[in-house]
């Protein structure tokens, strides 16, 4: 909201500089976002009278004018359409520097001499309007310095009024804040309404359907108005507040709204039927054209102001086009009312229509001064539009109620703020804020809540008033209390931190993606799960329309994006939630951990040029996975082959722990990867975070450091390439005695000499007893048993050195 300081001075004395005043307001709750200077001294600009206008001989769009500047008549070439003999406008003579920086020089324009300029608003820095020259009051004397007409430069505050402080949405409201902050008196203008017309009851009756939506409605009737522009001082104030001047009647309603916070509406009385105003909700199928010329469909909850037959205004939001003030208007019905915030908000939101009026009503106006605002506007219409005011005001006030009373304990104030404030200072603050103190003793006081405050219900609300007036800067820092928190809620958070530490240590960097994802991206990876997707009914954009069911698509997207930026390798993880919907519509969310590898991440630094092959890529990711699982005390995962659209056939693996599925891993399907121009294998895994970290707090059972030496034996074999490492391991473990304490694959290769479909594997076996030193004979015996079993069960050809 914009307010010029000069207007505030009508109601309260201000001795502070603009900066001091801005600080005062900002640190009491209404932030001054900007301090603007509007206008200037207009040095060298005076009121000029256009005496003659004739066509320019060489240019159709230009005119030759004779302008009197109070001393002499000068030739001026002017291009404005609204220049005419007799008008008065700002005139800048040769040598003037205009507020927009333009320097006026003696000029010849298309061959005609021009010794000055008639100015438009933009040239004077008043607005961006360049529609024509600024026409001034014809009664002004030529030669009057413009600064005397427009007034000195203005300082305008741009204020951010918080949602709860509807009382600050007016000049008087802000003046009241300043009065409270400085202790100076607030002066509200006396309104004298001179009623010379017939009784208002002979013009209009008002009825309100429900006091819940309209607790008060007043109407005045003004006869014989003379429509015209409003006086310059009023136009200027409106313009400084960002409101466009229209005509004297509409300008007066806007002026009083800015001044008092009461939105008013002026109807053309003769366009209302039946001399009747009904405040009611719309009937089914009803619609109306509003002032902005839009046809509005009304629903049955929309509150309207209607005449006998039809809605004439969207109550508290916008008037109807059918009863607008216009050239032909003679009589005016002036509405000043209070509409309930919730209804205004609802209709304004439904129609997507926010106005200065709805903005104020949905936050609450002062029901006690509805009549004051009507009277103020009527008096101004009488003064500035020659209106005759009908006798009396229709004042339907079904919502009349006692003011709320709130008790404030001085001790509670001190306790909550952590600073001792004397009872006398507290009541003083409350009185300055215009809360009448109706009872007071040593312990506390009871105040009445004035009608302009819609945010005061309980003691804490008053304590806030005390705090902001007393000053937050005067509240000291307490000594920090350091008690131990009674209960820890944060094991899951600790697990996240622990996994991050492990994964970054393993060389992976963390990614964070949005929770939203496009349906197309999911389709590529998981075309089947459509029914379980959580689709947003109101997404910001279509590429963010579904809550992600997996972290993998975005992980691949991230790797692909990095690849497209010439990043050759990346090892990444993301910790985030996935969302699913079951058949009943219930949404569940699960924390997941996603891993992704691109490029030769696991290679020696001087061996990165070779293409990455599928098996090594898979085994790098598996190695990271194993390290991670061990760090979380998951020791016995089982991998089974797993087919999924996103995985290259044969590379997908499901990871189980006991009877639970921990997650899956695999290489991204090559066709899918080609969407990102990925030519080399890319590995991804996704794990359920709760299963992964669920055992991390289990007690670690330590084993004694072995006392007796170990004996090692190697077993090398050639087997069919169908035989898996896991099968070989199983056979070795079965056939070896409990003394087998270590088993490691130390060599694997395939060569032509072995014959087709064969490979060679070599294992190192470590035997150790907890009771004695094993002899060579022991170890040889164990080794033989293993060899024998491998021959028998896997048809292995044992290779001896």
């Amino acid at each position: 909201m914009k307010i010029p300081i000069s207007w505030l001075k009508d109601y309260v004395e201000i001795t502070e500089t603009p900066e001091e005043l801005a600080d005062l307001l900002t640190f009491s709750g209404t932030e001054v976002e900007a301090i603007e200077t509007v206008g200037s001294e207009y040095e060298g600009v005076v009121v000029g009278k256009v005496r003659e206008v004739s066509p320019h001989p060489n240019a159709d769009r230009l005119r030759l004018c004779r302008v009197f500047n109070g001393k002499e008549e000068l030739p001026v070439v002017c291009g404005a359409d609204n220049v005419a003999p007799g008008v008065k406008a700002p005139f800048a003579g040769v040598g003037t520097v205009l507020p927009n920086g333009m320097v006026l020089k003696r000029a010849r324009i298309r061959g005609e001499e021009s010794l000055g300029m008639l100015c438009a608003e933009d040239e004077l820095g008043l607005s961006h309007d360049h529609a024509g020259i600024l026409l001034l009051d014809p009664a002004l004397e030529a030669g009057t310095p413009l600064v005397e007409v427009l007034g000195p430069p203005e300082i305008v505050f741009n204020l951010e009024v918080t949602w709860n402080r509807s009382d600050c949405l007016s000049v008087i409201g802000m003046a009241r804040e300043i009065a409270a902050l400085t202790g100076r008196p607030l002066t509200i203008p006396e309104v004298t309404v001179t009623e010379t017309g017939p009784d208002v009851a002979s013009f209009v009756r008002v009825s309100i359907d429900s006091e819940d939506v309209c607790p008060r409605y007043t109407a005045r009737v003004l006869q014989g108005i003379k429509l015209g522009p409003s006086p310059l001082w009023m136009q200027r104030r409106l313009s400084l507040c960002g409101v466009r001047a229209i005509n004297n009647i509409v300008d007066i309603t806007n002026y009083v709204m800015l001044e008092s916070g009461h939105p008013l509406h002026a109807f053309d009385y003769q366009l209302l039927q039946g001399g009747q105003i009904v405040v009611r909700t719309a009937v089914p199928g009803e619609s109306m054209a509003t002032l902005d010329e839009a046809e509005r469909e009304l629903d049955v909850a929309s509150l309207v102001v209607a005449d006998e037959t039809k809605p004439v205004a969207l109550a508290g939001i916008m008037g109807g086009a059918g009863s607008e003030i216009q050239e032909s208007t003679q009589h005016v019905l002036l509405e000043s009312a209070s509409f309930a915030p919730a209804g205004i908000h609802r209709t304004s939101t439904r129609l997507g229509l926010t106005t200065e009026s709805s903005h104020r009503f949905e936050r609450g106006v002062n029901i006690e001064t509805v009549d004051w605002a009507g009277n103020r506007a009527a008096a101004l219409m009488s003064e500035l539009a020659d209106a005759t005011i009908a006798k009396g005001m229709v004042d339907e006030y079904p919502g009349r109620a006692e003011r709320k009373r709130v008790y404030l304990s001085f001790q509670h104030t001190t306790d909550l703020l952590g600073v001792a404030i004397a009872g006398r200072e507290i009541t003083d603050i409350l009185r300055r804020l215009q809360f009448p103190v109706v009872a007071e003793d040593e312990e506390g006081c009871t105040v009445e809540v004035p009608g302009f405050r819609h945010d005061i219900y309980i003691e804490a609300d008053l304590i806030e008033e005390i705090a902001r007036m007393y000053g937050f800067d005067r509240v000291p820092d307490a000594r920090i209390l350091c008690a131990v928190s009674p209960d820890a809620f944060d094991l899951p958070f600790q697990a996240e931190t622990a996994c991050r530490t492990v994964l970054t240590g393993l060389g992976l960097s963390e990614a964070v993606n949005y929770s939203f994802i496009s349906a197309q991206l999911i389709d590529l990876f998981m075309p089947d799960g459509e029914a379980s997707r959580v689709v947003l009914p109101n997404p910001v954009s279509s590429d963010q329309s579904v809550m992600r069911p997996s972290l993998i698509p975005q992980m691949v997207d991230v790797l692909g994006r990095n690849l497209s930026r010439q990043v050759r390798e990346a090892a990444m993880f993301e910790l985030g939630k996935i969302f699913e919907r079951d058949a009943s519509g219930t949404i569940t969310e699960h924390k997941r951990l996603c891993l992704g590898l691109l490029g030769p991440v696991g290679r020696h630094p001087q061996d990165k040029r070779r293409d990455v092959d599928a098996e090594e890529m898979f085994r790098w990711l598996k190695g990271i996975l194993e390290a991670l699982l061990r760090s979380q005390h998951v020791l016995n995962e089982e991998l089974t082959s797993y087919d999924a659209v996103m995985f290259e056939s044969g590379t997908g693996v499901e990871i189980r722990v006991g009877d639970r599925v921990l997650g899956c891993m695999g290489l991204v399907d090559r066709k899918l990867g080609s969407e990102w121009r990925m030519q080399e294998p890319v590995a991804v895994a996704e794990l359920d975070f709760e299963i992964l970290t669920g055992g991390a707090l289990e007690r670690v059972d330590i084993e004694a450091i072995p006392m007796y030496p170990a004996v090692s034996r190697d077993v090398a074999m050639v087997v069919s390439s169908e035989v898996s490492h896991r099968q070989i391991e199983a056979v070795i473990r079965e056939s070896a005695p409990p003394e087998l304490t270590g088993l490691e694959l130390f060599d694997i290769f395939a060569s032509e000499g072995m014959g087709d479909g064969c490979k060679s594997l070599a294992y190192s076996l470590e035997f150790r007893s907890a009771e004695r030193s094993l002899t060579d004979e022991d170890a040889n015996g164990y080794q033989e048993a293993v060899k024998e079993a491998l021959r028998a069960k896997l048809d292995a050809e044992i290779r001896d050195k």
Partner: protein
Amino acid sequence: MAIFRDGLFFWGEMMNSEKLKETLSEALAEARVAPDIEGLEHVRIKYLGRKGLLPGVMKGLGGLPPAERGEMGKLANRLKTELGGLLDQRREELESGAMGNVSFDFTLPGAWHAAGTRHPIARVIEDAAAIFARLGFTVAQGPDVETAYRNFEALNTPDYHPSLDEQDTFWLESGDLLRTQTSPVQIRVMESTQPPIRVITPGRCYRRDTTDATHSASFHQIEGLYVDTRVSLADLKATMGYFAREMMGPGVGVRFRPHFFPFTEPSVECDFSCHVCAGKGCRVCKFSGWIEIAGAGMVDPRVFKKVGYDPTAVTGFAFGMGVERIAMVKYGIPDIRMLYDNDIRFLKQFA
């Protein structure tokens, strides 16, 4: 080894001065040819070790006739000094040789993978959690999909508050919504726990903002809640001051400006003095010397009532701040979208 009255036996042989001389030259030869430090150590143990030759000889000297005793004693001493000297010398040679024989280019790059990095968002959250942990705050988490009750009503939001608007909130078909703040987690904690309470609630939130340099439809918040008897605004000030210094740097101060939030009363906006220019004014703080970081206030008694606390018995403070905002201000990140772009060259800088 056995010692008899009539002579000194060693390793099954009778030891006399001749034999001992021979043994000495053998020992010296063995020391000379020992290929490595281990071999050298064998030689030392064999001749000079606790159960080796020399101590045996020395022990047996007393049983020898005086005439032999003198010569054998001298020989034994020679054995000790000569062999000991040679062993030391060889050891030195072998040790220096072990390095001296190998030569490589130590300017070659190291051959271990680099550490990965935490995302700046996670980093701010973890750092904040650690700072507040020192003040006795633990971390609470909750679901992203929340009820309208916990996200709005329980927080004293009036039913026509602007933040309830369709256009600002992601509503779901079920009537639930994506939380617009992490405050509903505080409600969950209060619903399930009696005071005293001291938690922070970091997490992801959602608002229907169009993405630009400073807005994102999904973002992260850290909120905090402290409920006990006699918690005051002065405690809030001290707590925010501590956090500001720990998070942004030792000289950083805090100021409060009154504001409005439905769930606190009084409510304040909390500015940190600019850590870049120390309050003098710079681009980061838009030349004001202050950076708006958090919203805070004393918990509204109506919120306590909603969760079944006695508002006359407890007071508390709550605060909330944007994680992305802190990350951007702290690390000088100009555009919030960089945080969600996941360019590895950006992420790697947060080592």
